[in-house]
């Protein structure tokens, strides 16, 4: 499935500043994140709340401002490129949003919402061309072309999410950042939408960054998976490898915590002790140290880098 790298993120850092009382804290949402996307692959980006996965996605489409690092696409660093080039790039790297109920303007027809990118960039030759492309986009996502004249409130959650996907493929992009695209959907609809994404990946040669907190879903659809914790990638591996031999203790805990639909395999205790610390005041050393079952002295002072490990994986742990 993978070709050559199409996008390369290096040392990405994005922070938000939060005021608590009179003090100002730096919330390091993304703290030195590096990864690459191969053409045609689905890279899963997984982690729990606050790990920074959504911020990584938003930094790639310009919704969050990275404070450091580079993102190389098409031979240039899109984080520091000219405004005029940026507009073209926005057509090629698109986002699908999580909430199907909030991501469509309730006052605009489905067709108008789908054609928005095209309208912004004057992509359509004329009205007929526009209508034709909208119809094709709808068909590509499994909806009847007649939906173009309807409004969001007439559609179900699953249908709206399909519309969100249709919006992201018109005009055809290179990369789709899917930010929790199925998290708000029922299991049976989830399956439909996941199948749709896999279909589109094949038919349009798309590359997808699939962001989710649900490891089972990510595991099902991704070729490679990056696990994030508190702003850092702690493990990056082929999907199969990640599940069969997780290297980082957090990955192990995450996999172990997934409730399996099998009553004979009960999870007894969480392998991760306690809960994640406050993101505002991170201690030095490994961010996972205070919850890690195998932590040692060194972990409290020395933050591990993401380094190659056995089986072609990348792991950020002193003892993986």
């Amino acid at each position, binding site marked *: 499935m993978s070709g050559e790298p199409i996008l390369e993120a290096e040392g990405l850092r994005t922070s938000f500043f939060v005021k608590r009382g009179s003090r100002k804290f730096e919330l390091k949402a993304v703290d030195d994140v590096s990864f690459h996307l191969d053409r045609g692959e689905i890279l899963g980006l997984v982690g729990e709340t606050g790990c920074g996965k959504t911020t990584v996605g938003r930094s790639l489409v310009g919704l969050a401002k990275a404070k450091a690092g580079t993102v190389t696409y098409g031979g240039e660093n899109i984080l520091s490129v000219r405004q005029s080039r940026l507009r073209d790039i926005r057509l090629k790297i698109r986002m699908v949003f999580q909430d199907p109920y909030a991501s469509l303007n309730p006052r605009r027809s489905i067709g108008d919402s789908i054609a928005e990118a095209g309208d912004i960039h004057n992509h359509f030759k004329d009205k007929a061309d526009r209508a034709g492309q909208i119809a094709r986009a709808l068909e590509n996502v499994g909806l009847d072309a007649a939906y173009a004249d309807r409004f969001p409130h007439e559609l179900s959650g699953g249908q709206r999410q399909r519309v969100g996907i249709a919006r992201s493929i018109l005009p055809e992009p290179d990369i789709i950042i899917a930010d929790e695209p199925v998290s708000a959907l029922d299991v049976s609809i989830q399956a439909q939408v996941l199948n749709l994404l896999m279909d589109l990946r094949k038919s349009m040669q798309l590359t997808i960054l699939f962001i989710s907190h649900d490891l089972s879903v990510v*595991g099902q659809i991704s070729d490679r998976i990056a696990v994030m914790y508190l702003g850092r990638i702690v493990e990056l591996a082929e999907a199969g490898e990640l599940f069969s031999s997780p290297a980082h203790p957090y990955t192990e805990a*995450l996999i172990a915590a997934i409730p399996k639909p099998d009553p004979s395999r009960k999870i007894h205790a969480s392998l991760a002790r306690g809960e994640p610390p406050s993101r505002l005041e991170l201690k030095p050393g490994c961010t996972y140290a205070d919850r890690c079952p195998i932590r040692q002295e060194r972990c409290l002072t020395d933050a591990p880098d993401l380094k190659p490990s056995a089986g072609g994986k990348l792991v950020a742990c002193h003892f993986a």
Partner: protein
Amino acid sequence: MVLRVNDLSVSIANSDPPLDIVKGVSLEIGEGEILGVVGESGCGKSMTSLAIMGLLPKPALAQRGGEILLEGKDVSDLPPYRRIEQDCGGISMIFQEPMTSLNPVMRVGEQIMEALRVHDAGSGRAPEARARELLDLVHIADAAHQLSAYPHELSGGMRQRIMIAIALACNPKVLIADEPTTALDVTVQAQILSLIRELCEELSMAVLFITHDLGVVAQLADRVVVMYAGQVAETADVDDLFARPAHPYTHGLFSCLPDPENRSGYLNPIPGQAPLITDIGDGCAFAPRCRFVTAECRSGLLPAADIAAGHLAMCHHPQGSTGPNGGSR
């Protein structure tokens, strides 16, 4: 059986003919048992639990028929606070979003003690002592410090533990948990689930656990009720349900679960989508999406097919094939 619900229906008030969003639901839970109610959004599981608790949004919805028997006594006509305060131990409830269920401008310790005072459930002791006892039960260390915190200062898992502590204040016989872990991270969810199981055993409560997550059901429940479009589709012991799902809907649900350990590519979704309540006609609500549908499915009453001891499926064509983790045909 501590809690028995017979033929419960919830309908839109003043609708004629009655528009039921929950239709003819029956279930029962024994002491120390966890009953999982599983289904997708709109299946009526939350409404059923609200009806049991007496919290249906009036005047829009109302219970229409059926009985809710707590230790044999029908509580359908009692307001919620009376259902909590039953002498034999009442019904208590925890919800999905602890952030909205807790008062943001009140310290959590105060909220626990408010529950104790309002229901006069100090059982003789000072509320502070009882509050600390409750925090102990839900494994919150450092009680003094946590009691003085505001909800937004605590993590999601902590807030949910506080919610559970408040629910336990009146020594309930039945605990209804409506998707309590859905909003939590998976590592924290594991902790809360094991806490609920522990409390169920320790306090001999009957727990009604509502979720859309089949994995959670497998972890926690002793018995399971699967709901679809406002009705019960299937009831079974958890092992039996996962080994031999009979109802085509249950079957369909299992087949579309992502399984990272068997990464076979495409999933097998159930085609179509759940019907609006106004579109449910006669016969089986699942008929339009069912692979095994025949003419008799589309009208008339559904039989309660007996699959095995304690295993019922409301279907003309219960399937006897394998579940997600094997089992014989």
